[in-house]
Structures are given as structure tokens and as C-alpha cells.
């Protein structure tokens, strides 16, 4: 059984919710990302999304754009991130999902990518610029490598699209909480509950919500509605502020622990 499925099954049995931190791999550097992954696991994170840096991250706000830029300046590549997952796996069974724009995957070759990712212990992929219509081939290769393909659903998605996304998404469905790019926001969209109800009507797969969720209070609010909560920019922002300085891993892990505690 895929680690993602097992994770959500166990959480459901325990009536728990998944905390899913996102960080950009290689920011500030790959060894630190490895340390962060291990520390997040210990701090109570249930799954981990690792961003693969890309030169033109058009779904991302400024925080993750800058993180991508820093990682690229460090020479981080898709292959390097897959190698990192292998290292993380040596000490942690946390489900790992790579979030990559499609072009680096195509450049590596979809088949080769799926094989390497599966071998390294990657459990799932999210490709924000690859809707189901264009994803069939990549998903077939990933399925063969026992890597889940997680699709995004959005506030603009029609009912027909929600059905299709729910049908093809594996592991969970990533619900984009707002119209816009990634990044912290003042408050959670007031219609989130109704939007999630709309999605629930077409699926019983786990739903994780991301985009714009940055504080413990927001995590608590969203955890009441969804099966998982994704926090990215707020964590990446902390990494940026601390840089490579001492105490980075402890500080960021403490933040993740506080978010997990907020889920109750």
C-alpha cells in the first residue's frame, strides 16, 4: 500500500487530520532540506511536500519564487531532489510528495522520472501546470512505479471538472483554497466550507487544502473542514528569514509542531 494511502487511512481511523508542510528542496541547501524533513517528521508532520525549483513558477507567489531562485542558484535539479528523497528515506518513512512544474519532468523523460522517483521512495507527485487532460501518459508511468499522481481542484472548477479530478487523483485531492497564487493571506476564504462540500459530494477520497494558509488559527479552522492542511509559504518565509544561520532547523520544526498542535 502506498504510504500516502496508509497515512490517510490511519488518520481517519484515529479521527486525525494530516498536517502537510511544503518546502522548496535545496533552500537554503539540500543537506538542510534533509535535516528539515527529518525534523518535521519528529515534529508531527504527517506528509511532506517537496518543491522542485523551476525558473518560471507561475502558480507561485513571491515567497516561493524567491525560494526557487535560491535553490536554482545552488544548482538544485530534479535529479538532485530525487537523490535527496533517497537520503531522507534512510531515516524516515514520512510520505513524500514532489511538487514540480511539468517541464523539468518532460526534460528528464516522464518514464525515466517515474522510475527514478519510485526507486528513491517518492510516494506522489503534484504537477501544478498539468491538468488531467494532459496528464495521462505521466500518470501511467507513475502508476507503474507506484507513485501517486495528485491533482488540484480549484474554486473555479466546474462540477464536471471536479468529478474528473476526483476520479483520477490518487492518494488525496489538493484543493486550492483561493483564486490566486501561493502565499500567505490575512484570512481563509469565507466560502471554503461550501466549496469543500461541493467537492465532497463527488468523492470520498481525502481532501487536503492549501494556498494562503499560514497561521495556527487558520490551520485549526481548515482542519475542521478537510482531511489535510498544506502550509507552504509561511514555512518557506521562516527559512528565508533564518537563512543558513544556527537554529534554523529547530526554529522551523517548532513552528511545524505548533501547527500540528493547532489541529487538536
Amino acid at each position: 500500500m502506498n504510504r500516502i494511502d496508509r497515512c490517510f487511512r490511519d488518520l481517519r481511523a484515529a479521527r486525525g487530520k494530516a498536517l502537510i508542510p511544503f518546502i522548496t528542496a535545496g533552500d537554503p541547501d539540500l543537506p538542510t532540506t534533509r535535516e528539515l524533513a527529518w525534523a518535521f517528521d519528529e515534529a508531527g508532520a504527517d506528509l511532506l511536500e517537496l518543491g522542485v525549483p523551476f525558473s518560471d513558477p507561475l502558480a507561485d507567489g513571491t515567497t516561493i519564487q524567491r525560494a526557487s531562485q535560491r535553490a536554482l542558484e545552488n544548482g538544485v535539479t530534479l535529479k538532485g531532489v530525487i537523490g535527496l528523497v533517497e537520503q531522507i528515506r534512510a531515516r524516515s518513512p514520512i510520505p513524500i510528495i514532489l511538487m514540480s512544474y511539468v517541464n523539468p519532468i518532460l526534460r528528464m523523460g516522464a518514464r525515466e522520472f517515474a522510475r527514478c522517483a519510485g526507486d528513491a521512495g517518492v510516494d506522489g507527485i503534484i504537477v501544478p501546470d498539468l491538468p488531467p487532460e494532459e496528464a495521462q501518459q505521466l500518470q501511467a508511468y507513475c502508476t507503474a512505479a507506484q507513485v501517486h499522481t495528485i491533482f488540484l481542484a480549484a474554486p473555479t472548477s466546474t462540477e464536471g471538472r471536479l468529478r474528473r479530478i476526483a476520479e483520477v487523483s490518487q492518494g488525496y485531492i489538493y484543493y486550492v483554497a483561493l483564486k490566486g497564487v501561493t502565499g500567505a493571506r490575512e484570512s481563509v476564504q469565507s466560502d471554503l466550507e461550501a466549496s469543500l462540500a461541493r467537492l465532497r459530494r463527488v468523492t470520498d477520497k481525502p481532501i487536503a487544502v492549501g494556498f494562503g494558509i499560514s497561521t495556527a488559527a487558520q490551520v485549526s479552522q481548515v482542519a475542521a473542514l478537510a482531511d489535510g492542511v498544506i502550509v507552504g509559504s509561511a514555512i518557506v518565509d521562516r527559512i528565508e528569514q533564518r537563512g543558513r544561520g544556527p537554529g534554523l532547523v529547530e526554529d522551523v520544526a517548532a513552528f511545524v509542531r505548533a501547527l500540528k498542535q493547532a489541529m487538536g
Partner: protein
Amino acid sequence: MSWPFPDRAGHFGRYGGRYVPETLMAPLEDLERAYLEAQQDPAFQTELTYYLERYAGRPTPLYLARRLTEKFGGPKVYLKREDLCHTGAHKINNTLGQVLLARRMGKTRVIAETGAGQHGVATATAAALFGLECRVYMGTEDMRRQALNVFRMRLLGAEVTPVEAGSRTLKDAINEAMRDWVTHVDHTHYVLGSALGAHPFPLMVRNFQSVIGREARAQILEAEGRLPDVLLACVGGGSNAIGLFHPFIEDAGVRMIGVEAGGLGIESGKHAARFAAGEPGVLHGTLSYVLQDGDGQIQTTHSVSAGLDYPGVGPEHTYLMETGRAAYVWVTDEEALQGFRLLATLEGIIPALECAHAIAYATRVASEIGRDGILLINLSGRGDKDVDLVSEIMGEAPQQGGMGVRHGGDVIPDVGR
């Protein structure tokens, strides 16, 4: 016209498609539906034609460039005078169409990206004409080299937003425009200026720009009683080229050549010649040829011409290249500057640096075509916007020469892959 591309999912062979975040998928479906309806609606077509003729000045002339013809020693060289369109370039053909469509869809705000500034000016113009709010994204490097167009856009009531990211050129402006669109998609239409991006943009932009080729085809038949031997157009994203080429696609005897920006030469790495040095990849919502590194990161480009300074290219051009229906070549910055001056001194027309690339390539291809041949070049825009930049490059001494044509960059005669 039996050309069956794009298919219903927006593909040209394996190219094109829709590679965008889910948030944009339903809006793109809505846009496609609205566009296809408008295309079938005589009232929409009548209104668009009215504005193209009475406001933008269509049809544009097809002009026999007599002294250029003499200089080349034949073939006859015809220029499709898109530089005479209102706002000074072909871009208005598309922005009038898209802004009318945006209004029809009930959108109150339009956004656009711009490189050379011509598309930004054309969008700001159409937005002013129909009373829509307008914001244009432009890289700061392009704002520097096309300062005049920045001022024009602001005069027209548009807000120009500087983009500091990446290479601070067209690519980065498109990223930022897409981020705006995903955030304000309810009331905003993204007026994409080139035949690229996610479906239906390559289809829609091509069709709005095909007025160029339809007119040119009728005009050359009237003037010469036959079709031209060669069509030449510069290719950045490729909207002026596809607009000229498309109505000739079924005319097998007409060669079509797109001219890319060779910058400082391919070997220098500072260029925007996607077909010479790119690989298939996804950029800005479409699968096409892209300049990228071995890890799939998009490369920065260089061209003296801001409008050609882009690492991707419209997917239909890639399909035309792969099937061999069109060939793609490149010329260097220096050659383009030579073409710029050649047209100014021989014909009294200062071309935009973009289409100066096509003029430059004409000097090479003319001898192949022969005295009885006909060469038709799309003069996609006028060069007023480039005069400051060119005077800077030429040391404000155009009479001094010192700009010898460099043939260092070999032409790829027929990419024919």
C-alpha cells in the same frame, strides 16, 4: 480551408494543449466557448470588421518595394504594410478582436504582457476605445529599451507594471500576467499578444491575425495574377508570421520562412533561436520548442529586438517546422540592424527591429528566388519605438557605417525536421 489544426483539445500534432493550473482551466473553457460563438456570430464579425477598417485603417497596402527589388537584382519584393496600422504594428488586429470578445463576455478589466511595447500599446488602445480598465506587465529591461512605448501606454490610460523577475523581459512579463489572471479571473480577460499560451489562445490569435494573410493573398493575386514564391516574417511568439502564413498553408508552392532572433550568434548562447537550439518543452501553458537547459530550466534569451526576445514559440510554428511546411532561420542583431538601415535608406521606411530581421534575411534568400520570383515580406511594425535604441547602438552616427553585416551565424537553410 481544410487545415484541421488545432484539434478540439487545442493540439497541433503533439504540440499546443493546455498546461495551466486548474484555476485557469474552466476560464479557458469559457473563453473557448465564447470565442467559437463569437466567430459564428455575424454581428460580432461585422463589428470587428468595422473597427479594423474605420479605426485601425485596414486593409493595409501591399507595396512593391522598387528600390529594394533593384538592390536585390530581382525577385520582386512586396511589403505587407502592417506598420501602417493604427498604433504602428499588426498587434491591433488581435487586441481589437480580444477586447471586443472580453466586452461580450462581460469582463470589465483586461491585462496584457508586452515585450517591445507594441502589444501593450495596442491593448491599451483597444481598452481605451471600449472603456475597459487595463494593466500591462512589462519587464524592466524592456521598459528601459522601449521607454517611448511605456509613455504611450500610460497616455492611453493603462497602468504599466514593471516586472523585476528573471531576465526582466517578455517571459517574465507573461509569468506576472498569468499570476494576475489567476487571481482576478472573474472579471479580467488576459489579452495574450502572441500565438502561444494555452488553448484557445494560439487558435484565437492566429485567426484574428489571419486578416494579414487573407488580404495579402488577394492583393498579390490582383497585382501579379499569381501567388508569391516565398513568404518571410519574423518570429518571436509568432503572431505576425502565423497571421501571414495561415491563409497560404494549402498553397503548396508557396514557401514559408520564419526568421528568429540570432542575437550575438548561436554559439554565443545569447540569442532567441528556438528552432536552432531549443527542445520540445512546456512554457506558459503550451507544449512547443523552448530554449532550456539539460534540467528543464528555461534559459534567458538575448535579442536587440525586445519583441523577439523570448525562449518559447507558438505551437503551430513548431508543427509547421516538424512537418516541413515552413522553415525557420535566424539572423544576428547586426544583420537585423543592417536590415533596419537598408529599408530606411532605400524605401524611406523605418521598420521595427523585429521585422528588420525578415528584411535582413531577404538579402540572403533573394538570390535563390531568381529574377522572376516574388518575395512577400510581412512588415509587421514601424520602427519609431526603436530609434532611440538604434541611435545608442550606432553611436548616434548612422552615416559612419561601422555596422558591417556579419555572416558568422550560418543559416539553417531548411530546418526540415
